[in-house]
C-alpha cells in the first residue's frame, strides 16, 4: 500500500543542531501511537536551504511548509494533519510582507530559485539509495556505460558549457579531455569537498542531502577518463556529510554501482574518503592533492596541471562538489537542456550561501545571470530591520564587495571578475549601513593571515603586513601613505603569490579601497568610523539636555564608568569606557550619543 502522506524533516547540519532528529523520532512515534504509521512516511532529508527558519518540516502532498518546528509540535502535526487533514496553521511560514502564513510555492525564497544541484535536497532521504535511484539517480551512469563512448561524454560536457564551480570557472570538459589524453597506468578522480570560505556551506549541504549525486558523477568521470580510483577529500569538521557519504558509498557498493564490474559492464571504479584537517589552503587543488598524498598541505606550482600530473604524479581530475552534482543531470537531461539555463558564457545555476544582514539567510540556487538584486531582495527578503544595503561580498576572502550600483548586473563568472570580485565557491555575505568596510577588510585579511600556508613570501608576509596596516587604520592610527602601501602590497600579492588564495587575498581590501575610498579616508583623516564598528574611533557621551537622570545607562554599564544622579545628570568617564555600546542601546531618550 502506498503512503498517502509524506513528512519531510530537514536533516541538514543547521536543522539537526536545532533538534530536527528529535522531531523526526517524535513524528514516527506519534504516527505509530495514533495508528497512522501505514499512511505516512516520515523521511529525513538533506537541507532545504531555508536555514534562517529551521528546523523545517514539510508535509506532502499538502505542501505544508512548517518552520521553526519543535519536537513538541510532532504530536499536533500527526493528530491534526495526518489524522484529520488539517494543516497546523501556526507552524506555517509567515511572510514578512504579506503578514500571512503561506504555502511553500508562494514563498519568495523559493520562487526565483532553480534547483539542479540541490534537486534532491529536501526531497529524498539521503541515506536511502532507492530514493535517489527513483529520482533518475544512476540513470546518467547507466546511460554513459551503455550508450556513450568516453569522447561522447566529453562532447556532452562541452556542449553543456559546464564550468568548475569552485573558483575561477575552468571549463570542466577541458580538464577531462586533458586527463583522458594522457596515457597512464593509473588515473585518479578527486572530489574537493574542503569547503572553507567563512559562511559558505553549499558543498556540505549537497553531500548531506544528496551524496549519491557526487558518487555517480565521479564514477561517470572515472569511465570517461579511464580511472578506477576516486577520492573525496572532505574536512573532518563535516561529520554529518562524512557519515552520509559513507552510507552512500556502502549502498552503492552493495548495489554494484561502485566496485568491480559495475552493473555487469566490466567497468570498475571505487571511491575512498580522505579527511582534511580544515586548512583553508587545502581547498586549493594542488595543496589538496599534496594533503591526500600525506604531505604538508602546500600548493605546488602549476603547470603541470593535476589533469596531466596530479596525485602521485598521475593524471587527476579534481572538481568540487557542486560541479560534480551537476553532471548526472547533464547526462540524463542532455547538454542542450543545461545550456539553455544561464548566460552566454556561464551555463547552469549557482548555489549561494546567503548570509549576513539579510532576512532569509540560507542556501539558494539560481540560474547564472540572476541579478544580485533578485537574490538579495526577492529571495533573501531584503535587508534585515529595513536598513540600507551597503554591499555584498562574493567569493569569501578571495572576493570583493559589490556595491549598490551593480545590483542589477546579471551575475556570472565574467561579471564578478570585472567587478574585482569572483564567483569563488559561492559565499554571499550581505552588508548594511552598520557595517564598516575597513573592518570587513580587516576581518577577511585576518582570515587569510590565519590560513596562509606560509610557503610563498608574497602571501605569507603580505597578508600580515596588510593586516597590520588595516588594524592601524581601524585604530585611528593610519596615514594616507598606508593606503598606498596597501595597494602596493596588494599588487605584489596578486602578481607574485603562488596560489589562488594568495593571489586573491588582497581582493576585499583592494575592492573596498576602490569603491569606498572616502570611508578609508574618513578613518585616517577624521579618525571616524561612520558605521561605529571600529571601537577605537567611537566615543560615547551623554547629552545633558536630553538626559533625565534615570540612571539606566549606569546600571547597564559593565565597567561602571557612568556616574551621576538625578540632578547632576550622568556622565561617561571616557578613559574607562570599553565602548561596548550597552548604554547607547539602553537609553530610551537618545541621550547617549555615539560619535
Amino acid at each position, binding site marked *: 500500500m502506498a503512503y498517502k502522506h509524506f513528512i519531510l524533516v530537514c536533516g541538514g547540519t543547521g536543522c539537526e543542531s536545532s533538534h530536527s532528529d528529535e522531531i523526526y523520532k517524535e513524528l514516527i512515534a506519534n504516527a505509530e501511537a495514533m495508528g497512522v504509521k501505514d499512511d505516512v512516511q516520515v523521511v529525513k532529508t538533506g537541507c532545504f536551504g531555508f536555514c534562517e527558519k529551521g528546523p523545517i518540516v514539510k508535509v506532502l502532498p499538502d505542501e505544508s511548509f512548517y518552520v521553526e518546528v519543535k519536537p513538541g509540535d510532532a504530536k499536533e502535526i500527526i493528530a491534526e494533519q495526518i489524522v484529520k487533514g488539517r494543516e497546523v496553521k501556526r507552524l506555517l511560514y509567515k511572510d514578512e510582507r504579506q503578514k500571512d502564513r503561506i504555502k511553500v510555492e508562494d514563498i519568495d525564497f523559493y520562487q526565483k530559485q532553480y534547483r539542479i544541484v540541490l534537486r534532491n535536497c529536501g526531497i529524498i532521504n539521503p541515506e536511502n539509495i532507492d*530514493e535517489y535511484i*527513483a529520482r533518475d539517480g544512476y540513470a546518467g551512469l547507466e546511460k554513459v556505460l551503455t550508450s556513450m563512448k568516453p569522447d561522447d561524454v566529453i562532447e556532452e560536457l562541452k556542449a553543456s558549457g559546464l564550468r568548475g564551480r569552485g573558483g575561477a570557472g575552468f571549463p570542466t570538459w577541458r580538464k577531462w579531455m586533458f586527463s583522458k589524453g594522457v596515457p597512464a597506468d593509473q588515473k585518479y578522480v578527486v572530489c574537493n569537498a574542503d569547503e572553507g570560505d567563512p559562511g559558505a556551506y553549499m558543498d556540505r549541504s549537497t553531500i548531506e542531502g544528496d551524496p549519491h549525486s557526487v558518487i555517480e558523477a565521479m564514477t561517470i568521470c572515472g569511465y570517461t577518463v579511464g580511472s578506477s580510483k576516486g577520492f573525496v577529500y572532505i574536512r573532518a569538521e563535516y561529520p554529518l556529510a562524512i557519515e552520509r557519504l559513507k552510507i552512500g558509498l556502502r549502498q552503492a557498493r552493495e548495489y554494484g554501482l561502485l566496485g568491480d564490474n559495475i552493473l555487469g559492464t566490466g567497468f570498475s571504479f571505487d571511491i575512498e574518503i580522505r579527511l582534511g584537517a580544515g586548512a583553508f589552503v587545502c581547498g586549493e587543488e594542488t595543496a589538496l592533492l599534496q594533503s591526500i598524498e600525506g604531505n604538508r598541505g602546500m600548493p605546488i606550482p602549476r603547470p603541470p596541471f593535476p589533469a596531466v600530473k596530479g596525485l602521485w604524479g598521475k593524471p587527476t581530475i579534481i572538481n568540487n562538489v557542486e560541479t560534480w552534482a551537476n553532471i548526472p543531470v547533464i547526462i540524463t537531461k542532455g547538454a542542450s537542456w543545461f545550456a539553455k539555463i544561464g548566460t552566454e558564457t556561464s551555463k547552469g545555476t549557482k548555489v549561494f550561501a546567503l548570509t549576513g544582514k539579510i532576512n532569509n539567510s540560507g542556501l539558494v540556487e539560481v540560474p547564472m545571470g540572476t541579478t544580485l538584486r533578485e537574490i538579495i531582495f526577492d529571495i533573501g527578503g531584503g535587508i534585515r530591520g529595513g536598513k540600507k544595503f551597503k554591499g555584498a561580498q562574493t567569493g569569501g576572502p578571495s572576493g570583493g564587495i559589490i556595491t549598490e550600483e551593480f545590483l542589477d548586473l546579471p551575475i556570472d563568472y565574467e561579471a564578478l571578475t570585472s567587478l574585482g570580485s569572483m564567483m569563488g565557491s559561492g559565499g554571499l555575505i550581505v552588508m548594511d549601513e552598520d557595517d564598516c568596510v575597513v573592518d570587513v577588510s580587516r576581518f577577511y585579511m585576518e582570515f587569510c593571515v590565519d590560513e596562509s600556508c606560509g610557503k610563498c613570501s608574497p602571501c605569507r608576509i603580505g597578508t600580515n603586513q596588510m593586516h597590520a596596516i588595516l588594524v592601524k587604520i581601524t585604530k585611528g592610527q593610519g596615514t594616507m601613505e598606508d593606503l598606498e602601501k596597501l595597494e602596493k602590497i596588494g599588487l605584489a600579492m596578486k602578481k607574485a603569490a603562488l596560489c589562488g588564495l594568495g593571489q586573491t587575498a588582497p581582493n576585499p581590501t583592494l575592492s573596498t579601497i576602490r569603491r569606498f575610498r572616502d570611508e578609508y579616508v574618513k578613518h585616517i583623516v577624521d579618525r571616524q568610523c561612520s558605521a561605529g564598528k571600529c571601537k577605537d574611533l567611537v566615543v560615547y557621551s551623554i547629552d545633558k539636555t536630553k538626559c533625565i537622570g534615570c540612571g539606566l545607562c549606569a546600571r547597564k554599564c559593565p565597567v561602571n564608568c557612568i556616574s551621576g544622579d538625578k540632578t547632576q545628570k550622568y556622565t561617561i568617564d571616557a578613559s574607562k569606557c570599553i565602548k561596548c555600546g550597552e548604554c547607547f542601546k539602553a537609553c530610551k531618550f537618545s541621550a547617549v550619543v555615539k560619535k
Partner: protein
Amino acid sequence: MAKMTLEQLRKLREEKKGDMVRRDVEGKNIQIIVGMGTCGIAAGAKQTFDEIVKVVDENKMTADVIIRQTGCMGLCHVEPTVEIVMPGMPATIYGKVDVPTAREIVIKHVVGKTLVENHIYDRPAVDIVKK
C-alpha cells in the same frame, strides 16, 4: 541486496518512482483533493482516498497528479467529497464518492476529461473556474 545488473537497476527505479513522484510538486497540474474532515472519514473518505491513489497509479498518472486532503469543506451531507482541479476542465466538486465512484471519477474525469454527471455536487459555471 546483491549487486545489480542494468535491468535490475531499471526495474528498481520504476518500482520506487511512484513514491518519489508523489512527493514532487513541480510540473504537476492536476489536483485531487479529498475532504478528510471527521465527517468525511466517517463517511468512508479514507477508502476513497486509497482508491484514488490506486487508480491514479494504475493509470500511470502519478507524475501529473497531486492527491491531497483537506479538512471539512462544509458539505457534510454529501461526504465523502472530492474536488478536482485541472487544466482544460472546470474545477469540480463531487459528492458521495464511494470507492467505485472514486475509480469512475479518476478514469472519466481525470483521464478521460469528461465530467461524471451523477456525482457533481457543484458544477461550476465557467466564470467561477478557479485561476
